[in-house]
């Protein structure tokens, strides 16, 4: 059993079987976390480079913990203190890492397609940790894992993705993954944050709804996206209070969904803006489990890619 690919760049190109393989493989990894020794020797001697061109704490640390629990070494290239600041090109940086014989490059970059570019030029395994507004596949996979763990079957599940759909790679990766697994996806957000191209991209597979109350009706899960301050400065949303009024997930809105509706958020949260604290800390929230699951899923991805040629 194998992933037939060198790299993980997106969920769009994964088959349902590949997604299932990754999710199945993540399960025993998660179980390791209950042991006192959480580390296994599987990737001993391998090196994982973390190449982050955007600030990120949780994703970077999650990959680092995942690599270390597999006994791989990690090298951390924070942009602030590397030659990237001196203007070295992405490909040159990648080739330098390859010359140092690293085995994996985990890349986060503000531009769409950055991971693909490295993938085309380098022989090492590339894992996309978020490229522009394109995809964030391991986040999508960990959200699928979290939903599957709670509900067994993703098929037919009604999932609402709520917020800044236009700028969210998390939304894209989730939508692709959910569609492939047979879930029913509703994208919900202000019209200004929901470009027309989405309809073209996903076709009839996703439902678009601007009214939050309608969107959450009979939802099995709501994945709340982080709203960024830049959007206000760009004039795409009038103000945070107005956004919260229409699109904030509050206990009142959550009541309209199914009784056991799950609440997800990729973090970091703006409490009181896109999500109310009562919801974030409430019994439906699986936000902290997403963090735990993220490590297991990333371990599964590294493990499966290590065996592919």
């Amino acid at each position, binding site marked *: *059993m194998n992933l037939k690919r060198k790299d993980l760049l997106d969920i769009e190109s994964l088959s349902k079987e590949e997604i299932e393989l990754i999710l*199945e493989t993540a*399960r*025993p990894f998660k*179980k390791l976390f209950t042991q*006192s020794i959480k580390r*296994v*020797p599987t990737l001993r001697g391998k090196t994982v480079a973390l190449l982050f061109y955007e600030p990120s704490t949780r994703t970077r640390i999650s990959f680092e913990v995942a690599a270390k629990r597999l006994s791989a070494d990690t090298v951390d290239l924070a942009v602030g203190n590397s030659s990237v600041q001196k203007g070295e090109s992405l490909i040159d940086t990648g080739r330098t890492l390859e010359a140092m014989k690293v085995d994996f490059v985990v890349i986060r970059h503000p531009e769409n397609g950055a991971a693909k570019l490295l993938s085309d030029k380098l022989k090492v395994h590339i894992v996309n940790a978020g490229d522009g507004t394109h995809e964030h596949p391991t986040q999508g996979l960990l959200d699928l894992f979290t939903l599957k763990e709670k509900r067994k079957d993703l098929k037919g599940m009604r999932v609402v993705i709520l917020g800044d759909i236009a700028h969210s790679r998390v939304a894209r990766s989730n939508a692709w993954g959910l569609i492939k697994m047979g879930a029913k996806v509703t994208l919900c957000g202000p019209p200004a944050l929901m470009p027309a191209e989405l309809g073209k991209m996903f076709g009839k597979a996703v439902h678009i709804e601007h009214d939050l109350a309608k969107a959450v009706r009979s939802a099995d899960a709501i994945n709340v996206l982080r709203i960024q301050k830049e959007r206000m400065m760009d004039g795409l949303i009038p103000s945070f209070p107005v956004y919260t009024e229409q699109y904030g997930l509050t206990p009142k809105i959550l009541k309209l969904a199914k009784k056991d509706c799950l609440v997800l958020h990729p973090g970091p949260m703006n409490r009181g803006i896109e999500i109310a604290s009562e919801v974030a800390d409430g019994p439906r929230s699986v936000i902290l489990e997403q963090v735990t699951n993220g490590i297991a899923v990333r371990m599964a991805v590294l*493990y499966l890619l290590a*065996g592919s040629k």
Partner: protein
Amino acid sequence: MKQVLSPKEFKTVLEKIAGDFYMENESVCRHGADRLGIVGIQTRGVHVAGRIAEILKKKHKSAASVGSLDITLYRDDVSEIGSQPLVKETDIPFPVEGKTILLVDDVLYTGRTIRAALDALLELGRPRKVLLACVVDREGRELPIRADYLGLNMKVKAGEKIQLKVKEVDGKDGIWIVQ
């Protein structure tokens, strides 16, 4: 595919393993689950371990704790082999600390699986003693490992494989030689 052990003979072999183990570890067996754990290696070893535990319970009134061990993450050939083995679950629902552990596998060949299993097992704690039971020993060891309790020795030609089947997975019990 040639059958070399019938279901009935298979049962006899497991009874012999359980009997030999009981004879040498009577006091531990009498303490049951407090002192004795039986751990099968995924996949067939788990079922063989379950059968041995059953025999110990029925014939010798010894109720051991039973667990399963997956050694995939402890293999020494990840990324050298073409296809990545599916990771299965390790489920040892009891502390191994201070216990006598009977490690169980179906076919003992190179010894690398057992090496990996020992590493995986010792990560869970410090057993008092680890003993190894295998149904079949085929020659070809690459590490200094041997079984403490063995069903039978078999010699097969190069290119031939010994296949042990169990009802729970394969629908029938027995041992076959396949080309």
